[in-house]
Every structure is written in C-alpha cells, then in structure tokens.
C-alpha cells in the first residue's frame, strides 16, 4: 500500500470539493431555475391535438390504413404481426435507423405470463423483431416494476428471454433519468418526473396487457404509461384526468394491446388462473385512445365507462367513438 502524503491527500480533497462547488456554480448560472426537461413533443399548445401523428417524414396516405386493427385466434406472434401489418406495417411507425423504446407492462415479479399480470412475451418479442425488420437501429424494452426487482420481473415474466431472442435490449430504468417535466397540455397534472429516454426516443411503442384494476377499472394503454413516471402513488387522485395529462406528454406512436390472456379480476397483480380469460386477441392502433376504447368493450364496458378515456377524448388526444373509427378485424385461423 503506497503511503499517501499529506500534500497529496489535501490536493485530492480540494480537487473533489472544487469539482462539487464548481457544479453548484454552473447549475446556479444555468438559464432554468430547475432541472426541467423541455421536449419537442410536449411544447405543443394546449387544446385539441392531432390524434396519433405518424413519425415518418414521407407521410403515407392516412386513408389507406384503418384507424385500428383487431386480430383474433392465432399465436401471440401472428396476432401481433398481422395487426401491425394491417395498420400499414412497422415501417409506417419506425423510420430507418430509428431508436425505439418498447414499453410493456411488467408491473410485478410475482408470476409467469400465464397469469396475465404482465404483457405476453411473444407479443413483445414480435414487436422487437418487426422494429428491426423495419430498420430500427436500436430497440430497448423497459418497465419499472412496483413489486420485486426489475431483473426478477424481466426474467419471470418471460419477456427478457423473448426480447433477447429478438435481439432487443432489456434496460433497467435508472433513477437518474426521471426528469421533472412540464406537461403544458395537462389539465390537472402539470408537472411530473418522466423517464427522459421515453420522451426523447424516436419511436415509443406502448404494449400494455389488458387487465382489471380497481380504481381505473381497467389498465390498458394509458394506464401502462404510469410505468414511465416516478411518483406513482401521487397520481391516484383524480386518476382519469391525470392519466390523460400524462398521455399528452408521452404520446406513444403505436399502441398494441395484448388481450391474448386477459386478467378479469384481482388486478393489477393477479396470481389466480381462475381470473384469466383466454381471448387470443391483439389490438393495434396509432391512436392510444381508440385502442383503449376498443379494449374496454372486450370487458363488456363502454369507452365512456373509463375516466381516462373520457378525459383524453375531451382533451382531443384521440377518438373514443368506435362508430367513427375505421376498424379492421382479422380472424387468423378458422
């Protein structure tokens, strides 16, 4: 062990302190008083927003494609592929070289996918593959479980394995990246600590599983976005409006709802196969409100029964009136 001389010791200490003080000075001089994030997506003015704006530079003819696709009766991978293809293919959403974040629901580490508390791993895997096929440069998959560690949740859900097979990257979300962000369009939630990468990514694909939730009634696309913010218990009051506000900040480019197996009760954690309904259905839409609205009907509910759909429709985030949507239904095998 080499001896540290007094001089060296003091030098190290003063360097360290100097760096810290310097940081403070730098941050004090910064233009913004807080470490707030400003993102293109959310600086749009409050008010009606164009539902599901595609990202590609060469705008494909919107009218060519249905607003929403429902696929039934097939393997999870086929259901996913056919749904996205009918929607115009993954190329419509993922430009060449784009960085993609896929956000499944991996809320707990407790059960395997059969229990329908977490998104079906093959649905997630299929999306990762399709992103690469469309020319994505990087596909990351992430969630921030509330029960158990991310590692345990990723592996027990089976998602880690399918993502690895598809060549995607399972990312452990870092505390450092939840950045205080203004939600300009927000009616009630005006500020939240949102995951920076999800705001800045080229493409955000939202892959919730359709399941029961006692307060929101159902957790679908918009509820799934809660995994991208830090202070979740605070959002529970006035949940419907706040979820819509959060959606206005994140605006996923594509929402694919996994209703392959649906959790009908005791959500969001699940654990009883008796509560699981085998639906073999996948819903895909660029409009998160439309996707959630259709999924609600699978549970025998009307879109307006869900507070967040009502709030999001009022804010103009999407279309909940199913009669006004061009819906394509595909039954894969008879």
């Amino acid at each position, binding site marked *: 062990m080499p001896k540290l001389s007094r001089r060296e010791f003091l030098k190290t200490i003063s360097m360290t302190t100097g760096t810290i003080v310097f940081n403070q000075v730098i941050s004090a001089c910064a233009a913004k008083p807080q470490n707030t994030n400003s993102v293109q997506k959310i600086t749009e003015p409050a008010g009606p927003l164009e539902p599901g704006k595609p990202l590609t530079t060469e705008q494909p003819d919107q009218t060519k494609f249905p607003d929403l696709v429902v696929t039934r009766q097939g393997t999870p991978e086929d259901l996913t592929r056919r749904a996205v293809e009918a929607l115009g293919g993954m190329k419509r959403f993922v430009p060449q070289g784009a960085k993609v974040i896929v956000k499944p629901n991996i809320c707990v580490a407790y059960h395997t996918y059969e229990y329908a508390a977490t998104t079906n791993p093959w649905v997630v895997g299929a999306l990762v593959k399709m992103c690469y096929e469309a020319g994505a440069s990087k596909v990351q998959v992430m969630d921030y479980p509330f029960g158990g560690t991310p590692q345990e949740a990723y592996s027990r859900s089976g998602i880690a394995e399918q993502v690895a097979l598809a060549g995607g990257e399972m990312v452990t979300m870092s505390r450092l990246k939840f950045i205080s962000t203004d939600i300009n369009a927000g009616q009630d939630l005006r500020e939240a600590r949102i995951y920076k990468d999800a705001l800045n990514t080229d493409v955000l694909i939202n892959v919730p599983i359709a399941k029961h*939730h006692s307060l929101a009634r159902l957790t679908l696309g918009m509820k799934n976005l809660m995994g991208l913010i830090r202070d979740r218990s605070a959002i529970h009051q006035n949940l419907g409006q706040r979820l819509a506000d959060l959606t206005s900040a994140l605006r996923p480019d594509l929402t694919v709802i996994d209703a392959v197996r649906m959790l009908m009760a005791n959500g969001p954690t699940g654990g009883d196969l008796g509560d699981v309904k085998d639906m073999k259905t996948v819903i895909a839409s660029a409009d998160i409100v439309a996707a959630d609205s259709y999924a609600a009907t699978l549970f025998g509910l009307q879109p307006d029964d869900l507070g967040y759909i009502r709030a999001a429709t009022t804010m103009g985030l999407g279309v909940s009136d199913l009669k006004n949507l061009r819906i394509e239904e595909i039954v894969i095998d008879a």
Partner: protein
Amino acid sequence: MPSSGSLRDTRKSGTTTPRWITARKIIQYGSLFIFLYLFIFSAHRVVPPDLVNLPMRLDPLLAVTHIISSRVFLPGAAISLAVITLTLIFGRAWCGWVCPLGTILDIFSFKSGRENPVLDATNDQNWRKIKYSLLIAIIISALFANLSLLIFDPLTILYRTLTTSLWPALDQAVIILETGLLNIPVLEEPIAIFDSWIRPILLPIEPSFTPAALLYFLLFASIIILNILASRFWCRYLCPLGGFLGLISKASLFRRQVSQDCKTCALCERVCPTGTIDPERNYTSDPSECTLCLECLDACPRSSIAFIPAMRLADWREYDPNRRQALATLGLTVAGLAVLSVDPRTKNPGPNFIRPPGTRQEDFLSQCIRCAECVRSCPTHALHPALLEGGLIALWSPILIPRLGYCDYSCNQCGQVCPSQAISPLSLDEKRKQIIGKAYIDQDRCIAWADHKDCIVCEEMCPLPQKAITLKPGLWSDPGGESFVVQLPQVDRQSCIGCGICENKCPLVGEAAIRIFRTS
C-alpha cells in the same frame, strides 16, 4: 504493511520481497476479494446461496457456538472443520492469511516505529486476556441458548458493517456525485452510461436506508483507529475468533523456532504485527498469538528463524485463560444475561418487532448468528438489524421494517442464504404462505376513510391472488349536498400475510395509514 521502509534499508542489500510473503499477500487479497465478491453478489441471486454464505460457514466460532446454542448440527457448517484442521497444522494462519478483517487491518497499518507509551508490557499482557474473556462469554451464553455476543465475530462485524453502512454510504456518495455532475450537459451521457454499469450489480437501483448507520460505521472505524495503538490491535487483544483459534494453536504442528545463532538483533520483534516475539524468551513467540505472517522470517538477517513441526503443546502464558478468569467470566455472563432478560421487551417486544418470514420467535435468538447475510440479500431492503426494539439481548438480529422495504412476494432469499437456518430455507411457495404479521388500517389517517378521496394504492399493491385488501364503496356527500362514492380499503385478516407492501407504498407522508403488526 509491517515491513516499513527503514527496516528494509538496514537489511541485506538487493533483496526483494520473499516469495512466502508474496504468496501470503496474494492469498490475503484473494480472500478479501472473494469475500467482497460474495458480499456484492449476495444481493443479486447470481451466486448460489450455499456459496454466498460460505465465509460464515467456514468460521469455526460461529459453527461451534451455533451447535451449543441451538443443539442442531447443520451439515453445511462441517466445512469449518477445514479451518480447525488448518489451525491444527499451521496455527493462526487463518488470521494472517485468510481473515478479510485481518487483511483490512493490514491495509490500514499505521505502524510508525515509534514507541507507544500506552502499550507497555503490562497493558499488552492484560489486554490479551480480553479476547479470551469474550470467547468464554460467547460460549457460556451459547450454553444458555443465546448468541448475542457473536456480534463480536470478525466476519459478522465486517459483513454487517458493509451491509448497513459502508455500502449504502458508497451508494449515497455516488448518487451525490452523479446528481451534481448531471448539471453539466456534456457529462449527461457518460454519467448515464456509468450508472448503467454500476447498477444494479455493484450498487442497488433504489438506495437502501439503515437506522443508526452511523453506529455501525463508528464501531468499525474504531477497530481501524485502534490499529494506531498497535498493529492488528483487534486481532491481538479483542478478536474472539482469534482467541478460539489461538487456543487450538497451542497444539499446532508448525511452530516458529529460533535457532542458537540468533544474535538478538530484535529486528524480528520490530516487524511482528501481533507483538508476540518476546526478547525475554530468546525472541521466541506464542503460537496462540502468531499469525504466521512470516515477516520475521524475512526480517532476520541470519536466517535463525524457521517454521518447523513440533510435537508438543505450547507453553501456557500468564495472559492465557485460567480458572479464575473463566469463573469470573461465567459469573458475569450469567449475571449479564439475567439482567438483560429483565427487560420486558425480551419477552414481549413492541408490535413492530417483525421477524423475517419463516422464523419462530421463541428460538430465533438461539440460532441467529447476527451475520446480516439476510439483511444484505433482501432485494427490497426490508430487513434491518434490530436496535433495542427487542431488548439489548436481541441486538442486531434481523427485523423487517415495512416502511423501509416490503417482503417481496417473488423472493425467498433470506432463508436461502441464512447460514444457520435461523430463517428456514423455504421454497417460494412455502414462503408465500408464511404469516409475517397482519395489516391494520388507521381510519383516522387513511386518505379514503378520513379524507374521502379515492386512493386504493394498498389494494392495488396487495400481491395475494385473492387480495387480502378489498374495497367497499362508501357513500359521502359534499358540502353542496351532492353525494359521492369513495372506495374504502379493508383488510381480510384471515388471508393477510403481512408482507408489508401496502405499508411501504402508502402515499401518506411519514407513518403509513396501513401498518403491519406482529401477531405472534
């Protein structure tokens, strides 16, 4: 290191560090590295549990006292016979070559060569007795089915300190630096990359918080600071494991022998880290105190020192335990245990004294070796060493503090890593049925009950397949007379297992409105 520069200069010219000392240092640092490696990975379920707790199972003091106290022999602890065998052959080589705390004390060696006024011959002799008193007290309290004094075992000290203060403090230091540097725009990306390197493998994703972390830190720091008084102060005077191995070393095979051509230059005496080389005994040493570091072999200019087999018991020194000391310690230990047992908390600890899943409150203290392996391996930082909640007698045995961390429904790690099976090694399915405590709602503070606002976080979090927290609609009317419905949480105490995730996630500031209470 004990061989200071000035000594080396007076020695035969052109010598490099002899290979025996190099070998010892490689083993020492290797052992420290393995210890730290197992420490780091015990939180990640990467290393199998039987390997994670290997250091504790190697420790013969833990093994022997656990057998005495619990009257249960665990096959896994048989590996400590390897250390006893090692000691029977080489004496206290464990201390000099393997013990990670010993290696850390070598690293923090303050030896200056100056005479130490506090440490005269009398004090040196008297203080060496302390470790034997401690050892006798540990064994006697083990006979009375209590292992509290194992808090003084060197491996448990190191592991507990790392778990409760050093590692969380390192984590906090990294967090402070990261958040500070994050304000510099160019550093944003490098810091994000750095953070994804170190988490979750080296440091946790969410920081852990330990009550009284400073206490553990100061105790450990004082062991290091005592090194200023004498090198390896802890090992010479205090370490009960050292005392235990020292007694076995009286019969060890290889001994340090000094030959006739010794010119009494005293160089060996000056390099000896445990100060056992005695000029008044022709520079011979006590095998009970010698850690076989071989520094003297290197220091001797005439090669008069050899470590060769000897087929007799070593001399009993005046500081070695005698009948009088043993009887006095016996009396004090019994008296101490008796007085501590008077504390009502030992019979009826507070309602928050919640043990890890799979423990029986009544015989837990006779099995828990206070190693903190469970505390470290808990992925949600739910387990913590108890302070005085269960009386001094239960000091640093593990308790679950739900507000700091919940018992993860997908985890059974504490029982898997527990080297003494004080926490039963339950399968995940068995652990999910263990009743740790029961949840109770404070209706005067609950957001739904008291403020009539929807919250339901506790219900949402409840991990049971048929939730133990259910919601019932409650009808209220606002000042305008308009009535509205609020979902009110209620606990089904029959099915609640007390995992504590509801208490942990309750959005109230400070104490939660739903809390876990001990039921047995």
